[in-house]
């Protein structure tokens, strides 16, 4: 059994990993709260944006900053186009159908990425990664801080936005029942478009950060996204704050298992096991079901 001294640095790496999960998880839940669509292509969109940024930087076509910006924009545009094309026809269907449709987008992007950028050792360098400071004997770099801060900022910002602004209320109403909201005179298509665009921009930004923090390859980023879904599940896709907290807890557990050699190999199971336990605990009394929007 490792000593406390040996565990300490893993708390820091755990928080960093939790921040990464949180960014992905919060971005997904935010869109769900606003449109009732669980966008399972969130991770793939971000990854593709990161690859595009890498290609542009590799060629030297544009300055690095512009490439990063284009990555974020790519996320926004692709998600927006998807939402505009496939949102309305599927609007009345079960959330499961809407989520499955987004799997279609995910597959398209994953296939495209694998085709265009075959697997090589690539890395995306962000200028903030080179600046570090020390916490508890472990070096932390500013990119990790940004990822964490962005997750928190989105949580607080979106929570407040959805609760206190008119547009936010319209979004929540739409996620609950689109048709009734439309009859109330809310410009549903426009509101939806805003939600999709914002979620897309967020996916581009998190793709950029994750590509730097975790690695630039599609398989890792996909697996990471699936792990981050665990946090969203624990929050039952409702509370953004719970998603954030759950993501951090999952990241911590995952990292803290690492130095325990006997079970270290199973550490990647942590997100899945935690999500399963949480869900089963919450469902023990009643059947959890989805109405046509966020519950």
């Amino acid at each position, binding site marked *: 059994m490792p000593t406390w001294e040996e565990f300490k640095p893993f708390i820091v790496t755990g928080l960093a990993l939790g921040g990464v999960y949180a960014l992905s998880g919060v971005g997904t839940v935010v869109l769900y709260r606003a449109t009732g669509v669980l966008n399972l292509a969130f991770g793939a969109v971000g990854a593709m944006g990161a690859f595009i940024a890498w290609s542009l930087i590799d060629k030297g076509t544009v300055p690095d900053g512009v490439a990063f910006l284009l990555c974020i924009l790519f996320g926004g545009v692709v998600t927006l186009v998807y939402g505009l094309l496939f949102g309305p026809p599927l609007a009345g269907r079960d959330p499961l159908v809407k989520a499955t449709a987004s799997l279609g987008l995910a597959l398209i992007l994953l296939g495209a990425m694998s085709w265009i950028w075959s697997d090589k050792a690539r890395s*995306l360098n962000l200028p903030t990664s080179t600046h570090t400071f020390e916490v508890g004997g472990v070096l932390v770099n500013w990119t990790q801080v940004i990822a964490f801060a962005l997750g928190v900022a989105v949580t607080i910002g979106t929570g407040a936005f959805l609760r206190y602004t008119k547009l936010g209320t319209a979004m929540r109403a739409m996620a609950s029942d689109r048709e009734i909201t439309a009859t109330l005179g809310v410009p549903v298509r426009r509101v939806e478009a805003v939600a999709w665009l914002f979620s897309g921009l967020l996916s581009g930004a998190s793709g950029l950060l994750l590509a730097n923090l975790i690695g630039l390859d599609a398989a890792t980023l996909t697996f990471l996204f699936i792990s981050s879904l665990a946090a969203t599940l624990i929050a039952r896709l409702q509370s953004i704050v719970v998603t954030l907290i759950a993501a951090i807890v999952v990241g911590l557990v995952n990292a803290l298992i690492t130095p325990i050699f006997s079970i*270290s190999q199973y550490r990647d199971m942590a997100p899945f096991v935690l999500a399963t336990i949480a869900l089963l605990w919450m469902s023990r009394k009643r059947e959890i079901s989805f109405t046509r929007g966020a519950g």
Partner: protein
Amino acid sequence: MRTMFRWTRMRPALALLALAVCLLVLAACGSSNNSSTATGGGGGTTAAPAKPAVAASKCGLGNGQKASGTPIKLGGIATKQPGTDFTDIPNAAKAYFDCVNDNGGINGHPVQYSFETEQTDPGQAAAAAKKLVETEKVVGIVGNTSIIECTVNHKYYEAKGYYVIGSGIAPECYGTSNFAPVNMGPRYSVDGAAQYLIRQKVKKIALDQSNVPGTGYIAAGAQAISKDAGVDFVNLKDNVPIQDANSVALKAVQAAGPDGGVLLNFTPPEALKILQAAQRQGLQDRVKWACSTPCNTDFLAEALGSAWDGKLGVNAELNLTSADGPDSQLYRDVMKKYAPKVPLGSFSQMGFVEAAVATKALMGIKGDITPETANAAFKDVKDFKTDILCKPWYYGDGPTHVPNNTDRTTTPQGGKMVEKEGCFPISDVDPGIKQVRQWEQQNGVS
């Protein structure tokens, strides 16, 4: 309603069309690499050395004439799937064969080389071998590089009398009479890296590998060598793809302890993650670092940057891509002309050497080139000298083959890999090496 239905029906088709246009644009942007650069943020440089060029050796007959007789069919199998792509090796072999075809072929006959890819599906790998031998009727199999192919197919090759020249990965590649690898394989490369660390006077070695079948087999050699040298040894595993490189690097460093050494055995993208995470946490000076041969690529050296200069000892089964030497020069020329998209590195060097061996063997055949004569020629290869390998390569009729059992250590320096230690033999404390050295002695191979 009807119009809407039609529009909705067309939507996916339109989306597909739009996507196709985007993909074409992206493919034009993304597919051409400017040689060895892999980082976002770094300028690209080619790996062409600034040293005075040695005269390159020749492909095949070297007479500049296009070959045009009946083609000689050769084939290969390589793994290609997300996370593992070994196609650089057969692609490099193909480049060499293309060069041979432009230079008189094999005594006038062009080589027709093609290879199958497999996605670690054993059924697929078995079917690929059968396709090559029974459908395509290749006379020889060259350039095989697959995680599973040796395991699945070695009995088939033994039964059909095919002597494969390839790159070994699975243990079975080093345990059958019908496969001779140009490389050393993970076990012996890890041995060599362990020997480097021991020379760096570490007290403990922490070996970290990707969690795929065979890790115990790979670790066994290094463990024996460490024990023999009085150095502690611990064997770690991590699932790939690695999500949390920070924790992995930290774990390895902690396991090695003070004055310890970390030995990584991963594919380049995963090793890169760990090394970058180690650097970001300032761990590159805490312990000594070593890596098995997949790390020996300029891609990695460039991506790592100056923080790692001289600090990572990479076991190199093959010479530097920038080495002086006629074969190395030919290698660079051939890759530049016939396979510009394949990066310079151990993978393409292996393919090059495998094709060169096969070509020389086939050129020495008097009479018809059939599967029987071709494979007999492969088996008879002896004393194949090349500056890409430390020692002359051979096939022979031994029960197993590890002809490449002497190698170097390289280290990243200024964005490139440079030599740190010259050729040294892999320790015969490892029983596999001991057996091979005994056979070499008995059969008069140096």
